[in-house]
């Protein structure tokens, strides 16, 4: 299973990905760029602050083997299926 999350402006180091039971939680913080000059804002549309989001996972994943990468503000979490959940061919024996 692959989960892709858009997290522009979030430093990968500030990301926290955890799992408990079947819940995967992605949380972190986005800081506003600091302006040194006494600047005035014309627009402030971009949200900042802390965030957290949880998703329910199917039971059949092996969370111990999960991996995550973050490029261009997009987080990709990959969680392989558990061995037990993979489709299996059952051989039929004749008599």
């Amino acid at each position: 299973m692959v989960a892709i999350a858009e997290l522009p402006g979030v430093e990968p180091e500030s990301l926290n990905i955890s799992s408990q039971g079947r819940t995967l939680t992605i949380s972190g913080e986005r800081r506003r760029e600091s302006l040194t000059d006494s600047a005035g804002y014309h627009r402030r549309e971009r949200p900042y602050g802390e965030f957290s989001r949880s998703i329910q996972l199917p039971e059949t994943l092996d969370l111990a083997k999960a991996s995550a990468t973050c490029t261009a503000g997009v987080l990709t979490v990959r969680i392989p299926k558990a061995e037990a959940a993979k489709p299996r061919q059952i051989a039929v024996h004749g008599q």
Partner: protein
Amino acid sequence: MIRDQEIVTKEKQQVEGTEKTRPGRYFVPDVDIAETDDMLRLWADMPGVTDKDVEIVLKDNVLTITGMVDAGIYNQLSPVYTEYNVNYYRQFAMHEHIDDSRIKARMRNGVLELELPKREEAKPRRIQVEGE
């Protein structure tokens, strides 16, 4: 520790009106714009856009930002649930006189950072008052 406001996911707004030459859905990126004495600074949230996929054009005082998202990460995936994977497009009419030869742009963590320096004649000037 002071807790900042909480970020919640929000709906993206689709670009309306002008039609693009390249097909695909285009959304309006969130931006911050700040002005200092020397320049305008702009930040635009465009997650998934790398420095190679962003185009910035300043023509006739209209600043156009286009960001293309490489949908390659979705190849060989069958989506169970999706919210978005889109391109970005936004235009601004620039009131200040921008020195387009000195515009600086960079992409960092999916955020476009633009520095738009003002022309010398557009900068605020303090006028010395001479005494008698």
